């Protein structure tokens, strides 16, 4: 399997706080890889650094054989890397359709109408609400919108930051079903989750972050079975 994303020894700081320490990991084409860990372990910081919202002080990030460190944030998406940020961050005052159009911002001259149909087929709820202002959607619908919006850019790697956050269990199930469907359709996924059980059960491989460092890694099944992981993250 070809490596699509390679994160090599990155260190990220917020002022004097050392949030991510020498983190290295890899995502191969066609995989679902998950980063799990407690609140404040540096998971979101890692994703935000990959997408260019934050910058690492040392280390390197390579995406499709190209260094990503010096690429400004707004140019990252056209390289094929999309982030569904933590807290969804849909444009609350814009309509569902406008949000999706913003996702296709870099797709100049392509057939956006057809892509919209694809997204609406994937998320029928969004089609029903296409003219509605995103601020009126429920949390689960907003999460679907945020995912649909990211998919509009035809990402080669889709990064999801806490897609299950604040959602009812039935919606969490739905979201993970969608993630698996996207994966089956050929999208490579990097998933950050606090819900370790759910994340590990769909992931090919996982990395465990603790206070900014990777402490363990393995296949999803290995990590699920590991007593230490069970004790720390799976409530038993």
């Amino acid at each position: 399997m070809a490596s699509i994303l390679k994160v090599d020894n990155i260190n990220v700081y917020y002022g004097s706080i050392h949030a991510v320490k020498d983190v290295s990991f890899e995502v191969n084409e066609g995989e679902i890889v998950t980063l799990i860990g407690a609140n404040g372990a540096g998971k979101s910081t890692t994703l935000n650094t990959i997408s260019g919202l934050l910058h690492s002080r040392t280390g390197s990030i390579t995406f499709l054989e190209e260094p990503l460190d010096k690429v400004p944030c707004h140019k990252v998406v056209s390289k094929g890397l999309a982030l569904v940020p933590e807290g969804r961050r849909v444009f609350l005052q814009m309509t569902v359709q406008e949000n999706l159009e913003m996702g296709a911002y870099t797709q100049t001259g392509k057939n956006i109408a057809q892509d919209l149909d694809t997204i609406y087929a994937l998320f029928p709820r969004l089609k029903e609400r296409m003219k509605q202002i995103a601020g009126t959607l429920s949390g689960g619908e907003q999460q679907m919108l945020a995912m649909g919006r990211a998919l509009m850019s035809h990402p080669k790697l889709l990064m999801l930051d806490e897609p299950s956050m604040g959602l009812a269990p039935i919606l969490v199930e739905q979201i993970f079903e969608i993630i698996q469907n996207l994966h089956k359709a050929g999208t490579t996924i990097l998933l950050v989750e606090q819900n370790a059980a759910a994340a590990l059960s769909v992931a090919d491989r996982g990395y465990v972050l603790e206070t900014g460092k990777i402490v363990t890694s393995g296949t999803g099944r290995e990590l699920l079975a590991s007593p230490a992981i069970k004790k720390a993250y799976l409530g038993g």
Partner: protein
Amino acid sequence: MEFLSYLISGISLGSVYAIIALGYTMVYGIAKMLNFAHGDVIMVGGYISFCAVSYLGLPGWLALILAMAVCTVLGIVIEGLAYKPLRSAPSLAVLITAIGVSYFLQNTALLIWKAAPKVYPSLIPATNAQGEVNALQLFHGQLSISYISLLTMASCVVIMIALTLFTGKTKMGKAMRACSEDKGAAQLMGINVNATISTTFAIGSALAAVAGVLLCSSYPTLQPTTGSMPGIKAFTAAVFGGIGSIPGAFLGGLLLGIIEALAKAYISTNLANTIVFAVLIIVLLVKPAGLLGKYVPEKV
């Protein structure tokens, strides 16, 4: 009939305020800053068009286009040199810088064009070469509306409609709305936030040039401080209507102009500004976000 004529002069004045307020409100909506130098860009637009007509002998419409072009560039330069380096600075630092830019523009104008007021050649003079008034006569001449007033009101409506279509229908306009809501998320979509802010300043400054030409055409004294009072009034209008809202700026500008004109006519010329600002205070007490502004609570 008298009332109608005061009302129309109020709408005409309010149209100028509205055009300026649109610039204020767009910049605030996207860059989240109050550009207090906006009023002085109006003055620069006035001087540029004045020079184009008086020294270069250009026709009025060409002078207007030249003023718009110069102000557009000026807006981009001000943003790039003064505000962009402060993008992540506290908002007070940006505010003080904006006041500094305002004084810089006024004093540069003072150096170039001196303090003595210039008599501005109106885009449409009050009378034509034959000595006939350039005005629309209604009700057997009892109500007279000058062509420049009509042009001012029409420009305001056209600009308002154009901006609404631009932000609602075009890709660039939608990107601006996305930036005004969440710059981080906008960047994740591939929107170049810095370029979007520059474009906003360019549009706002071009509008300021239009406002400058229309304002000086109706009130033909031009001096380095010409832009400050209309600038402050338009800022008031933008807050009045709900800062960040385009229809709000339009409504706020018109209402402010009408209140000012009626207060001058029926209460007192000297008290007109006091009344205008008193109304602002009352509106903000009742509706803190302005007439059309939305109070958006932070979602946690």
